[in-house]
């Protein structure tokens, strides 16, 4: 299995500096549209991406770049796409409970280009890499997983809450902040020796992804990578995953 390279994800904090100039998304009258006057200019987006590669957390200095430099530093538009994706994610404070900053991807799904770009970025990474299985975690992993599976020719396998899947299942218990939960998958959905990528919208502590890794491992499947739109770095999910690679598009510092 070829090792997949790890480009650094755009830091969401820096991406939000661009989006704070817009009015808040999701009010009925002024819903986010990508072509509003307040959207960040192309040169600004490129400056952000140059500053995130190994950058410190200070705000980037805003400078104009020449046309020639813009072309070479953003060859396939990846940085532009990731900046746009990051800017469509809405943060809701104190949900589901006080103190939590919830990363809401429903606003991303309302921007057809951002949604398409999200899927394309994962597809570009995983196609022609002999990935047989895309495992999606209920429920938001069901939104991103199937389009990726369809585009790369893999099967989609849902990893579900207990008692939802009919037929023969295996279960794995995992820890939550308070208490435990259980994840299930179908025996027979996968074959030993297959290669899988696990997809979810967000990685926090890594508990859910770890449960999925264990379930697939018990059936002889190799988990090549976990793929999420967003990573909450403070919660150290990447460390909890240990040797299991994690790929994300947007990193909340």
């Amino acid at each position, binding site marked *: 299995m070829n090792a997949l390279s790890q480009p650094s994800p755009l830091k969401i904090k820096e991406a939000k500096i661009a989006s704070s100039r817009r009015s808040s998304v*999701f*009010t*009925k009258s002024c*819903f986010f549209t990508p072509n509003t006057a307040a959207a960040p200019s192309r040169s600004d987006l490129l400056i952000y991406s140059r500053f995130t590669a190994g950058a410190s957390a200070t705000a980037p200095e805003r400078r104009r770049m020449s046309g020639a430099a813009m072309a070479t530093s953003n060859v396939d538009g990846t940085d532009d796409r990731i900046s746009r994706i990051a800017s469509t994610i*809405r943060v*809701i404070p104190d*949900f*589901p409970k006080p103190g939590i900053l*919830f990363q*809401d991807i*429903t606003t991303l*799904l*309302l*921007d*057809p280009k951002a*949604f*398409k770009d999200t*899927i394309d970025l994962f597809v570009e990474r995983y196609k022609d890499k002999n990935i047989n299985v895309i495992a*999606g975690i*209920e*429920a*938001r992993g*069901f*939104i*991103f997983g*199937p*389009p990726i*599976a*369809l585009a790369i*020719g*893999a*099967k*989609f*396998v*849902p990893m*579900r809450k207990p*008692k*939802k*899947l*009919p*037929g023969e299942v295996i279960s794995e218990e995992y820890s939550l902040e308070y208490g435990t939960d259980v994840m299930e998958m*179908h025996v027979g*959905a996968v074959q030993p020796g297959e290669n899988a990528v696990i997809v979810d919208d967000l990685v926090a502590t890594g508990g859910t992804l770890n449960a999925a890794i264990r379930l697939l491992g018990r059936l002889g499947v190799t988990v090549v990578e976990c793929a999420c739109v967003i990573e909450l770095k403070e919660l150290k999910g990447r460390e909890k995953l240990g040797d299991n690679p994690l790929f994300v598009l947007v990193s909340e510092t």
Partner: protein
Amino acid sequence: MFAAENGLEGDPRLKAISDAITVVPHFPKPGIMFQDITTLVSNHKVFKHTVEIFVDRFRDMDISVVAGVEARGFMFAPSKALGIRTKFIPLRKPGQLPGEVIAEAYELEYGKDCLEMHVGAVESGERALVIDDLVATGGTLPATIRLLERNGGEVVECACVIGLPALKERRLLNGKPLYVLVEPRA
């Protein structure tokens, strides 16, 4: 209406879709013949057929919104939204969506349940599709239609992979056209 009566009669994709569904008797309770679509979504070629058929149908209907209901609807609806380049709106069980929501209760066989949708996700006058895995005679799709309409959307059609034969005689679901690919397997 069933796809076979609407231009797709004899289309081998419909048989492939039907064959890919697994029937699990007496799940979740005795007497129910559960239509398990996990064997469909794990069959890449057949899963792709469902996307092609729906996208071909809806591509030129000036749709700007596709809504899908948690959780199995999430496996089907987003790929169609991507295929016709529209927004995707998730409709969810209570307490799952952050921010401002509207809720609609609906009847189950025993008791009630509730669906929620974000306020402002649909703009007034937008043409919407609802896509789900299966329509029985339950209240999920009508509740979805009501939520979209309360937000000002115009529901153009409901589309499902599987639909009960009883619906053959009733082409409209609460006044909205219904498009179904296959009947449940015995």
